[in-house]
């Protein structure tokens, strides 16, 4: 099995982008590309060739689910594992996000110290 290296994170909040990037790179050793919107992700994702995609749910413009649907139209991203990041983690909400094609959901606010492990465990599942 290959190891996870390249993560695309789509998130509109600058503070959260910065903390997540630090956590994933410094603690997890991943290579992280941040996109601030679904539109930017559509432009950048193919060239970055992510092995995993993290999507904020609530974003202005294209929200997380819309971004996921759009990314899935790009052949090279058809099977890349995706996790949503959201504060809405009631069982029925998680089930809904999984029904959209997400592998799992990461609760926000996340713990920066354990985020990398969480992402790795989702990717391995």
């Amino acid at each position, binding site marked *: 099995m290959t190891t996870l290296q390249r993560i695309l994170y789509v998130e509109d909040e600058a503070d959260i982008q910065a903390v997540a990037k630090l956590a994933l790179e*410094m603690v997890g050793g991943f290579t992280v590309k941040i996109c601030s919107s679904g539109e930017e992700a559509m432009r950048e994702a193919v060239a970055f060739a992510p092995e995993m995609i993290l999507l904020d749910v609530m974003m202005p413009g294209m929200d997380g689910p819309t971004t996921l649907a759009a990314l899935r139209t790009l052949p090279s991203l058809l099977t890349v594992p995706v996790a949503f990041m959201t504060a809405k983690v009631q069982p029925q909400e998680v089930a809904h996000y999984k029904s959209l094609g997400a592998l799992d959901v990461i609760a926000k606010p996340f713990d920066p110290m354990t985020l990398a492990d969480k992402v790795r465990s989702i990717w391995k599942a």
Partner: protein
Amino acid sequence: MSTNLEAFQALLARMREEFLAELPRRCDRLDELILTLEKDPGNHESFDELYRGVHSLKGSGGTHGLSIITTLCHQLENHLTETDAKHGFGAAFASRALAYVDLLRQVENIARQNNPNYSAIEADLEALRQEGLQSRKTGLIAESSPMMAALYQQALGHMPLKLTLVDNGLTALERLLHEHYDFVIVGREVRELNGIAMIVALRSSQVGNQNIPAVLVSSKLGSVPDHAGFSATIARDKNLADSLVAAVQAMVAV
């Protein structure tokens, strides 16, 4: 602990400090937007910016380990969501929203202390929450059909109301005679005591609810006695949900 983790934690601490240092400026902007909305309730751009600003603080605060900010902003978000532009913005809306922002400002200093104690903020937050609950208009729904009752509740679910549902006309009348309500919605055919008889009885009583506005929902709109004094009669048709929302908005705006 490895050097890498130590460096990571030092960076996190620095980013948290930057976030706290920026908090007063962000609070100033929220204040400006609230005051703008008080003067100009229909200003959707200001509302959207206010909502985004609060939502952004909620996410960022939590990410920096400041769960008090997440809790506070979540409550303020609810206040904004429950506020309806048609009648909710105004002095009362602004006053409570500004009170939330004042509490946000207090977080900055407390968060920098060695053992931050947010209990005073939490107490004020709870008081604001209670105040919000008390300021909600209360309505009684008397309807024996579970399907119709669910439809009423769904139609009115987005409004800042506290609704009580009763499926028996006698029970509904008893509650109207003993508990305070701002309005009542009745179906025409309610078990034990029909809706019209219920409201006629209420009008002939001497209780505080005697003259509260009442809406009758019925498939037969004719033959409703004038002395029942219904504010509106609504047909059970495809427009029921919209008609009900309009009637309740008119009643709670009085």
